[in-house]
């Protein structure tokens, strides 16, 4: 119940500030742009292929458009999610309302979950609007919806993981810009350790690749909902929430 009160207030706060609309617009326009480019490229190729039918067999809309589209979306999520999470605690720290929140009879777990869900709802909304693009595709061409939905499930799980990391970082500072930049840096780091896994041999490489936030997403984009990937993202979400609560508790001892 209290979680829901926090959730509601956060959602309203998103929509009174221009930030939500800006983020929404950026997200939709950039992804629309990617989508348009890839779809046009696909059409061009299919027209070329039409002249050589035997080559067209390997061409699939999902492989050529949907999967890269999800990859691009994940890059945009990396850029946009820090902007969603930066205010969660930083704004309350700055304005001092955190003092009222922490002295009210509700636990830190409740505020953390309420705030997490609010940012996640915004992300859900953003992602939901992009379903428009595959829908357009399906009107002019045949598309397999299975991998699209599994891609969205993966995208939401990955976004949830990003958000819970951003939430934890936003407890560290009263400056929203600092919170956003730190979150961005952190996400980028966990994104890139997947790349270095290619050069590290053996178990070390596997660990790095397992830790990488993006590595687990690719399966979803290919249309595979692997339990291991789901468990990975859920544990990152849990860890982020846990860290958030720990940081809040420790801030009471420090200052």
């Amino acid at each position: 119940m209290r979680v829901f009160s926090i959730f509601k207030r956060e959602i309203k706060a998103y929509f009174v500030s221009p930030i939500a609309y800006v983020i929404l617009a950026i997200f939709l326009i950039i992804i629309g742009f990617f989508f348009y480019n890839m779809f046009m490229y696909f059409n061009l190729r299919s027209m070329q292929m039409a002249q050589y039918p035997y080559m067209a067999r390997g061409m699939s809309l999902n492989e050529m458009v949907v999967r890269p589209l999800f990859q691009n979306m994940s890059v945009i999520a990396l850029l946009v999610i820090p902007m969603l999470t930066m205010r969660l605690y930083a704004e309350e720290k700055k304005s001092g309302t955190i003092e009222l929140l922490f002295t009210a009879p509700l636990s830190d777990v409740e505020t953390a979950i309420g705030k997490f869900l609010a940012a996640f709802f915004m992300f859900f909304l953003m992602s939901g609007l992009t379903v428009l693009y595959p829908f357009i595709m399906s009107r002019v061409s045949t598309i397999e919806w299975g991998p699209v939905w599994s891609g969205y499930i993966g995208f939401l799980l990955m976004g949830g993981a990003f958000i819970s990391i951003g939430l934890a970082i936003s407890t560290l500072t009263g400056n929203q810009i600092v919170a956003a930049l730190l979150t961005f840096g952190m996400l980028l780091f966990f994104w890139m350790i997947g790349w270095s896994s290619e050069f590290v041999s053996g178990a070390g490489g596997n660990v790095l690749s397992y830790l990488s936030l993006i590595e687990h997403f690719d399966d979803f984009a290919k249309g595979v909902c692997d339990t291991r990937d789901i468990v990975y993202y859920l544990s990152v979400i849990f860890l982020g929430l846990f860290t958030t609560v720990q940081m809040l508790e420790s801030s009471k001892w420090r200052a």
Partner: protein
Amino acid sequence: MIEVKSLTKYYGPVRAVDDISFQVKKGEILGFLGPNAAGKTTTMRILTCYLKPTFGTATVCGFDVHKNSLELRRRIGYLPENVPIYPEMRVRTYLHFWAEIKGIPGKKRRGEVNRVAERCGLENVLSRPTGKLSKGFRQRVGLAQALIGDPEVLILDEPTVGLDPKQIIEVRNLIKSFSKEKTILLSTHILPEVSMTCGRVIIINEGKLTAIDTPENLDRHLRKSHRVIMEVKGACESVTHILEHVDGVQAVRPLRIRENFFSYTLDTDIGKEVRPLLAEAVIKNGFNLLEIRPLEMSLEEIFLKLTTQEAGGKGR
């Protein structure tokens, strides 16, 4: 209702509160008086469970800040120093939000919001955004927020700071009107405030408790004539010279009243009655003593005396 035992709080190496103990009884208004950076806010933040003490304990309504923080928080209303608000929310939604958070059941929420709004004179601004309110109304919104859920204890951190004189009086009266049903701890760095609103005063300086008493007692205790005023007819230099040499006199400040008549303000040693000696010295030297009386010290001066290191109240 509030019990504080050897409370100490460090911010890193900075000791903001140093071994403070006191109690607040049910129904009492206790004033927490101290200059800026004395540690008032820190103490209140510990009592409201916003901060944890480094050492010591505190209980409110029998609930410990460590062990029963949630139960404790149900029983206090808190007005933080800068009266934080969510500027985008309207007064009604703002109060409604806190009523939800404080666990007022759905059906009673509306009534509770109306009750506190009426109590704090907010009926006419309920649909205004909190971010657009004047400082005086913002303070009332903060007080209304603290009153939601009818807590037994109110903790108010500098409730009148930054208000104009009219608003100060209004807010003070508001606080006094709560005092019948509630236990109140309020902090201030303005002295007259405590004598006007509080039953007892704690004076705190640099994290340490300097005095705890009723405003009247503090007054009486400290007014034991540290200062004497005399009016003498005669040459200023010689009279000053004579007075300065009386045992127990620390300083003499003459002030010309009219030709050949001077008023002298004397600082004297604490706890020593020097007036007979002064009178004798003046008369023995052939001057006319027109008046001699102890100078009433204002609470401001007592406060300064208690919170400045220098003895004898010369630290002005």
